[in-house]
């Protein structure tokens, strides 16, 4: 056998197990999920008959109904994305720039800001649930010191979604800070010097140099965080009473509904249809990211 062919054989041998794995654990189940979404699937029943696109029709019908919890789940999930991602990225960028400007204690700050990221979402959720408690939580204690009346936070339909968003933003902040920091440090100082020589002021430097050069990083983090928000589950389950998705369904998410419909009410077909929709949303976002990054290849 020629040298080249031997290497090809080795490549196949190396890839045997991984490819088999991806086929069995990823590709197969994906098709299976589509199949489940086309059936009336109660795991307890003997037969799970095909019902065509019935499940999808029901999901869309429920989304169209302003009172339906499925609709609320999709609405909330989108709200999380639209509110949470910009806040988190702006905060992270600001913090990264601050960190970039100091010389001492940088390591300590980096560590402290990153700690929430290595903590489990469940522990984080329970701690914040305690912080948010209306009558004996830390936050209301502090507010009380300033004479501000107790807030209901997670129990108030107007505050619940923001309260949950704050927790998720808090936890993911450190990761974004580190990535931004790396990105900032990769910008050559010469760019700034050249611009300053041309008489550019602070904001000009920020707008014309920092942001454009950070663009790939910003897009990357935005997509990552968006997808994370789209998949949110553990936090909401552990922040709401009995994991029900907040007062009057104001904090429930798509994945939480999938879980409840599929494993609570045993309507797995409907739940699978929802996950297919989720997949579509994520795919769209990933494609948008791909396009955005491809465009900005200047500099």
């Amino acid at each position, binding site marked *: 056998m020629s040298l080249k062919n031997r290497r090809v054989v*080795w490549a196949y041998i*190396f890839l045997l197990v991984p490819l088999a794995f991806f086929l069995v654990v990823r590709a197969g189940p994906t098709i299976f999920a589509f199949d489940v979404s086309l059936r009336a699937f109660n795991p307890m029943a003997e037969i799970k008959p095909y019902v065509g696109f019935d499940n999808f029709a029901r999901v869309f019908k429920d989304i169209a109904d302003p009172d339906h919890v499925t609709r609320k789940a999709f609405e909330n999930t989108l709200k999380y994305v639209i509110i949470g991602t910009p806040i988190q990225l702006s905060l992270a960028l600001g913090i990264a720039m*601050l960190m970039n400007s100091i*010389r001492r204690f940088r390591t300590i700050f980096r560590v402290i800001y*990153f*700690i929430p990221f290595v903590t489990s979402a469940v522990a984080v959720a329970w701690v914040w649930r305690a912080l948010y408690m209306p009558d004996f939580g830390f936050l209301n204690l502090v507010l009380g010191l300033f004479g501000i009346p107790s807030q209901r936070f997670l129990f108030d339909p107007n505050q619940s979604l923001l309260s949950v968003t704050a927790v998720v933003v808090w936890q993911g902040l450190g990761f974004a800070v580190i990535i931004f920091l790396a*990105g900032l440090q990769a910008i050559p100082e010469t760019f700034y010097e050249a611009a300053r020589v041309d008489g550019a002021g602070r904001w000009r430097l920020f707008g014309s140099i920092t942001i454009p050069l950070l663009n790939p990083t910003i897009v*990357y983090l935005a997509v990552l965080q968006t997808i994370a928000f789209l998949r949110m589950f553990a936090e909401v389950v552990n922040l709401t009473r009995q994991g029900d998705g907040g007062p009057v369904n104001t904090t429930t998410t798509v994945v939480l509904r999938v879980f409840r419909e599929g494993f609570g009410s045993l309507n797995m077909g409907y739940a699978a249809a929802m996950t297919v929709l989720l997949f579509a949303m994520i795919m769209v976002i990933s494609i948008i990211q791909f396009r955005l990054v491809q465009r900005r290849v200047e500099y």
Partner: protein
Amino acid sequence: MASLSQGLSSGPVRSRSDSGPLLAYVLLGIGAIVMIIPFFWMLTMSLKDPSEILKPQFLPAAPTLDNYTQVLTRTLFPNWYFNSLVAASVSTASVAFFDSVTGYVFAKFEFPGKRIAFLLILATLMVPTEMLVIPWFIMATGVKLADTTLGIVFPGLITATGAFLMRQAFQSVPDELLDAARIDGMHEFGIFTRVAWPLVLPALAAVCIFNFLGNWNAYIWPLIVTSQRLTMTLPIGLAFFSNEAGSAWNLIMTGATLSTVPLLTVFVFMQKQIIQGVALTGMKS
């Protein structure tokens, strides 16, 4: 913010006023306090006697270690800890090997079907696990894997993200080294393990750390695949300190502290590598 201009100069030369950095320190300090306060609260709640927990006080009036004794000796917490440890270790060991092998092949070999295989693995990145939990669940119970370690870890034994990271790392390994080893008569597997692999240790470390962390904190899949309290992992077990009768806050906070402290310690000692690894994943974008 005045400090923005300071942010723009990453070098030591500073011609602005020195109030810039001071403001930066103050702001960062306040932010750091916000990041830390929940952990402080978690700790103080774990030291409070159950009767004190629901009182609006900052510090425990009579701090006690009773909660810790209870959690460690009279609950299934040690089981959950062990389960999490085993699951995360098994998964990380598998990922360390298979992700590397996969990345290596894509980085250093040409073969028919390479593009298709690459796209297949790339495509798996787009499918969210939430979509797969129902099929996984049906598959796992079908082969009686529910409530087993393998059942908990099987979805993550090989990961596409890890494979891609390793691929990038292997791409910077000089081909000449590998060719030289081939001329020396070394077989391919040996070249992989003895020549290429040792050269990508930083990336490997990053992949391992992330994988361990991800597995340790995983929630939705272990929740679905385990139904018996004995086989639960930490995050799942912790959530069961609360039920429709109420939440045992003292136990939950103690459990949360206990599950966070080891990770934290490891993190503090290895923070340099971990953070470098994180930055690495960002650079790959």
